[in-house]
């Protein structure tokens, strides 16, 4: 079944993504060429980087004239914001692992992620994060031979 194309527009977000990735590929190629022009350095890297840059031209052209189709379902701004909040909370969790300890970081992230996910009942918010943190920290201490920093446990 074919979907009707209503109009064309510039798809800024995917255009920015492929341009950023192509930019990184170009920077990587230049850095590698700066290390050495020896084929043993560039045997796979150089042709692949050229392929990525070549494909960027095609993709960017497509994103400049992106068709808007009938019945296209898009997320609401509130839904996008909720995803971004989860991505941000996860980033802060990773940053906090070494800074405040794995235990506090897990506790904090679990609590925030529950709230972002829509949990509003106080009892689960109060009990689940610390219990989950206890289980994970003790479980991984038994399994993993490397020490990891904690503040409370």
């Amino acid at each position, binding site marked *: 079944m*074919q979907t009707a194309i209503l109009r064309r527009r510039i*798809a800024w*977000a*995917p255009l920015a*993504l*492929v341009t950023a*990735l192509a930019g990184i*590929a170009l920077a*990587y190629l230049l*850095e*590698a060429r700066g*290390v*050495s022009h*020896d*084929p*043993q*350095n560039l*045997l*796979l*890297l150089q042709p*692949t*980087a050229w*392929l*990525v840059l070549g*494909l*960027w031209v*095609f*993709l960017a052209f*497509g994103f400049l004239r992106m068709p808007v189709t009938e019945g296209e379902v898009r*997320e609401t701004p509130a*839904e996008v914001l*909720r*995803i971004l909040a*989860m*991505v941000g909370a*996860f*980033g802060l*969790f*990773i940053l906090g*692992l*070494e800074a405040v300890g*794995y235990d506090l970081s*897990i506790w904090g*992230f*679990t609590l925030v*992620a*529950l709230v*972002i*996910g*829509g*949990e509003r009942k106080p009892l689960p918010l109060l009990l*689940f994060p610390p219990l*989950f943190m206890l289980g*994970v920290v003790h479980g*991984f201490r038994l*399994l*993993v*031979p*490397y020490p*990891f920093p904690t503040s409370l446990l």
Partner: protein
Amino acid sequence: MIDFPAFGAALNMLGGSLDAWIWVVPGLLIGLLFGALPGISVSMAMALVLPATLYMDFLPAIIFLTSVYTGAGFGGSIPAVLINIPGTSSAVATTFDGYPMAQKGLHNEALGAALVSSCIGVLISYVILFVLVQPLAEIVLRIGPYEMAAIGIWGLVLLGSIGGSSVTKGLFAAGIGVLCGTVGMNTAGYMRGDMGIPWLLDGVPTIPAMVGLLAASQLFALVNAKFIVADESKRTISLRRIIAGGGLVLGSPVALLRGSFIGVFIGAVPGVGSSIANLISYGEARRVSPDPESYGKGNPRGLIAAESANSSSEGGSMATMLALGIPGGGATAILLASFAMHNVIGGPRFMEQNRDIVYAIIISNFAQALILLLVGTAFVFVASTVVRLPLRYLIPSVLVMSTMGAFAIEGSIAGPITLFVFAVLGWLMSRYGFPVAAIVVGLLLGKLIETELLRAWQLAGGDPLYILEHPVAVGILVLMAVSLGLSLRRDIRRRRALKAASAVA
């Protein structure tokens, strides 16, 4: 090829020893549990139980470890199907159709199909090992860098446009994956793209990157959903449907057999292993299918091809280990360590002098595959409850467990940071229609292809025509080109037929 007196002695050995059997079920359960935990690899699970085997006799120790190996081989597919996280790197291709099946409410069938494919894959691989252990090992010795590079390129080309609607997007994603795979110091000693970060000298940590790309990115996209399976009526856990899923495997014997043979052959090649077997088998199944568009959208044949290959690679790697004493990967290296702990040296001499023990290991693995069918069904039944958990609990729990798994693999913060970076990249790319799986494949195969191409380049002194002296590599590349040409012709014909049909309508 079969030494019947030794076979009889092996049967006697197993029949007269309770010790050889009592460790099978615990081993399978440990393997299933650890394999299902993201970040805990098959070899890590085996390493954790290795000290316990010190006080066992030689045969029970090896049977215990191979039970863990068999259990973990299937265990990795449980989170792959249920939450899109390959529990081990050998279950990457299992996510491609397994998770879409779960999203459609076919999680019972998907897990049943994965279990039966795994069990039959293990059985077939040990049958092949039983009959062809020596010739298989001799073939493996002839495989050099040219052949390995050809296998890697075969996998990359097969999977370049995986799951994506647009070949351009698939190739772009695969290219980004290959570039990520070349970061760090290559085997010629050149350092590229490490950005001054010490842990990038060894390259991008593959498993955290893979879990980030496939799982964490998917979890971000699910933040606004309530459950993995949207339809409440489809969230049931049914033994009948798990068994029906197993029945799907029997209805797809070609996918099963092809996957098993690919798994045995690729698993036997040292350093390649089950993760590549899993990907190549999936790619082949998709390529020869009359309906390749259905792959990546929940086609059980994709799942069967992927699972049969990763499980059957166990038999392949055991062939190399038993016949040559060469460990094909981490798991067989641990088995060899256990040999050493019992003052046994693996390799051709062990094979010649202890053929009865080799046969006992093989027979025990036949039994393990059959017992896995029962133990695995019970395990799958319990694990399926994941689909009933609300996502607001599942998302933070899985993200935290994946982060800890990434830490466990790397032993430093490098794992969690890699996981996060690739999770964001994977989320953005899948949001705009890029097949994330293609980046994973590029990442896995990029490093292998570069290493093997470099070895080949060094052997040839830079002369590309030197490949002509390696007929097997040329054969693989010619076969690849011919099969791609045939697929392309078939695609063009199908498109023409569709166009003609829509014109008539």
